[in-house]
């Protein structure tokens, strides 16, 4: 059981504190409700660029990292489609240093031209390193615009085109800050060796005076229902063909999310997952295969991807995937298999929560989706899912007409 206190400051900042005396550390997580979804189509990648700029200092405290390191801290951040998340762990006795640093940069960032210019160059190298210079590195960049036609999920967090990053100027960056980096658009969580009382009073002391600011409204075009299969074929210098498939689903907050999480675990969880057993072990069509459901705020996806063994025809591989899926649609999953996936969820949940940083991140995310109690209650939701629900979800979502498929082919290997 993870006990926590929840408190909202007058400026709208939500604070959640969970005390764990078994560690000498405290983790602080600040979630800003701004991700690549909040970008303009002509200026994508801005949320992620902004994450880099957040470490460039402020007029009052120009060197964020130096002070954090002096306090024995370690920090990092990530950006996804919906949020930007900053986190720190440090010895509990120095927690106030992080309050000092984080409240300062939430209040007002320094937008130096030099910092902006350098970070643009760093991001271009990040783009090269992570997406262009890796085998299969651009697959998700290709898949997104195939799956989403109008919703902002159609571009990746790194940006639709690197020229967008090059064109970001001071004014755009400043505007993004003022319309998203506000106390009323963020969630602060503290976990570890700190009492709830102290966590809340320090939050009040350091963040309480920051002004509430108007947040840019979140009205995004909803993605029209997909009615026919979409296919894209590309050729790349890679040693083996790969298959990527994506089906539209509902948002993270829908009940189906949990059913689909178990469904994808039945398909590909562990070495005993059905796809692995049938298509890797038995039929030897794939060298690896995986499926998962995304945790997106707006309607998300089931993503399935696999690398093919040599000389396997990609259409045959795809048909074999559907054979496995069809079995799931036509016959209920045995009781023992349902018990297995529920046990796997329970176990991974327990292990996740042995770490204060995970607890801080999860609490923040659950607060964001409106129910921090889920950090304790999700286990019960999973327990109620039965095999009928899985079968129904498979029928509802895993239809070819709802699917976008990317054939990522090895160049030089022509289709038969």
């Amino acid at each position, binding site marked *: 059981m993870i006990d926590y206190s929840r408190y909202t400051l007058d400026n709208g900042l939500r604070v959640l504190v969970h005390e*764990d005396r*078994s560690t*000498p*550390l405290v983790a602080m997580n600040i979630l800003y409700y701004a991700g690549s979804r909040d970008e303009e189509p002509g200026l994508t990648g801005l949320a992620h660029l902004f994450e880099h700029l957040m470490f460039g200092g402020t007029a*009052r405290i120009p060197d964020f*990292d*130096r*002070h954090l*390191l*002096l306090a*024995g*801290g*370690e920090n990092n951040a990530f950006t996804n489609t919906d949020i930007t998340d900053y986190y720190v*762990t440090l*010895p509990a*006795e*120095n927690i*106030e240093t992080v309050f*000092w640093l984080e409240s*300062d940069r939430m*209040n007002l960032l320094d937008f130096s031209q030099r910092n902006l*210019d*350098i970070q643009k*160059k*760093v*991001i271009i*190298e990040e783009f*090269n*390193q*992570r997406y*262009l*210079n890796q*085998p*299969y590195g651009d697959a998700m960049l290709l898949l997104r615009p195939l799956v989403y036609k109008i919703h902002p999920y159609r571009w990746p967090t790194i940006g639709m085109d690197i020229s967008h990053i090059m064109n970001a100027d001071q004014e755009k960056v400043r505007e993004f800050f003022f319309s998203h980096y506000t106390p009323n658009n963020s969630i602060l969580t503290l976990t570890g060796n700190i009492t709830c009382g102290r966590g809340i009073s320090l939050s009040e*002391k350091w963040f309480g005076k*920051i*002004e509430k600011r108007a947040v840019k409204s979140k009205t995004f075009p909803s993605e029209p229902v997909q009615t026919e299969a979409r296919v894209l074929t590309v050729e790349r210098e*890679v*040693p*083996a063909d790969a298959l990527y498939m994506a089906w539209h689903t509902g948002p993270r907050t829908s009940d189906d999310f949990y059913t689909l999480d178990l469904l994808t675990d039945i398909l590909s*969880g*562990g*070495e005993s997952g059905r796809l692995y057993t049938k298509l890797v072990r038995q039929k*030897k069509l794939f*060298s*690896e295969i995986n499926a998962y459901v995304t945790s997106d705020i707006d309607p998300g996806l089931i993503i399935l991807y696999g*690398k093919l*063994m*040599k000389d396997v025809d990609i259409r045959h591989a795809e048909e074999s995937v559907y054979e496995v899926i069809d079995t799931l649609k036509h016959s209920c999953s045995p009781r*023992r298999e349902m*018990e*297995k996936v529920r*046990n*796997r969820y329970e*176990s*991974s949940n*327990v*292990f996740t*929560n*042995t770490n204060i940083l995970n607890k801080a991140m999860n609490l923040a995310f659950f607060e964001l989706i409106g129910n921090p109690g889920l950090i304790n209650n999700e286990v019960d939701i999973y327990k109620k899912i039965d095999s009928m629900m899985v079968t129904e979800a498979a029928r509802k979502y895993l239809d070819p007409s709802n699917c976008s498929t990317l054939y990522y082919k090895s160049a030089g290997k022509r289709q038969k």
Partner: protein
Amino acid sequence: MSIVFPPKPPVLPVDPGRTQQPAMVKLNNGIPVYMIEAGTEDVMRIDFTFDAGQAQEYLPLLASTTNTMLTEGSLHYSSSELNKILDFHGAFYNLYAEKDRAGFTIFFINRYIEKILELAGEIAIQPLFHEAELKALMKKRLQLYLVNREKVNNLAMEHFFESIFGNHHPYGRQIVPEDFENMNPPLLKDFHAANYTPGKLAIIISGKIHMRTLDLLNRHFGENFASDVYIEESLNFLKESKNRRNHIKKPGAVQTAVRIGCPTINKCHPDYPGLKILNVILGGYFNSRLMKNIREDKGLTYGVHSMVSSLILSGFNIISTEVSKKSTQKAVDEIYFEIERLQNEPVEKEELEIVRNYMLGEMVRMFDGPFALAESFRSVWEFGLDTSYYDRLIKKIRTITPDEITTLAGTYYNIENLHEIKAG
């Protein structure tokens, strides 16, 4: 918009405390079991670690293939049964075959301990090495290898190891596609019989340790598991390449991967704690000199890092980065520039203070929670050291002087000794 914030809070000295040596008991046949009791959840992590790493192999892939085949079928269970049962109980495992050690770590919820330890015994002691499973596995691994060879990072890393350790030792030897055809069940059985023995095994347990743990370990590992004595004569030897520079061409690569470093001392050497600190200053954390110069000042890369690592027979230091083709030389020059600066100019007091506090904070994180404690313990134990190594490191972090750092940089980063490998 101007608001008055409270004054800067004071920073208190970070104290990682004293490290504790885990309790050790022996199973009936002498296998040592180290126990680290910690944590709040009813879960355990058990590391079954054997002296069965690549250093023991006389053919490439032998150690890693033997290790991967452990879960591919045993005396009483087929591979799919093993995996089904482990998955059913929500257990997670990692198989590993490192340069020195090999084995597996298993994470599970305590109430399933009985079944999990029975299977752990099967996996470690009774694997069968079926031909069909082996063939399928080698096909998959060959494919993975071919994908990895496309990554400039991997290419540069493999050539780096070959350059610093030579191709007559598993530490440096590169894998070629034909190696995947050489594996067969008798070879693996032989390697398993010689290396997965009680005499080469240690068990490291952490978490909320279940009261039946030792009983069950004795049942599955302490009885009917004895060592045959193998006389080993290794023909492997370490030899640095004379040619210290190499550029592996990869047409079409968007970036070039750079690796610069050399063989060095390992954890057992008295200079090692100082070398660790020097490494942090150079490129071991986000605020390092290399990061500040090459990323934060010049924007040439997404990341540049340096590392000092210990192996049983040697150690090595390595600086790694990925940069665009046109900036490669510039980045390499800056790496040497930063090394020379550390050799010639004493580190400023302020910078050293940051490094001291950051490293002490890292030590707190390394001892936080049962799993981190187990990792930290294993990484000294395998060198025949105990956790007093960390006390020496903490003392060195607090007391090292700028002059010591300059001397260490001169001794251990002698530019003439460095190998420079590029791929891209």
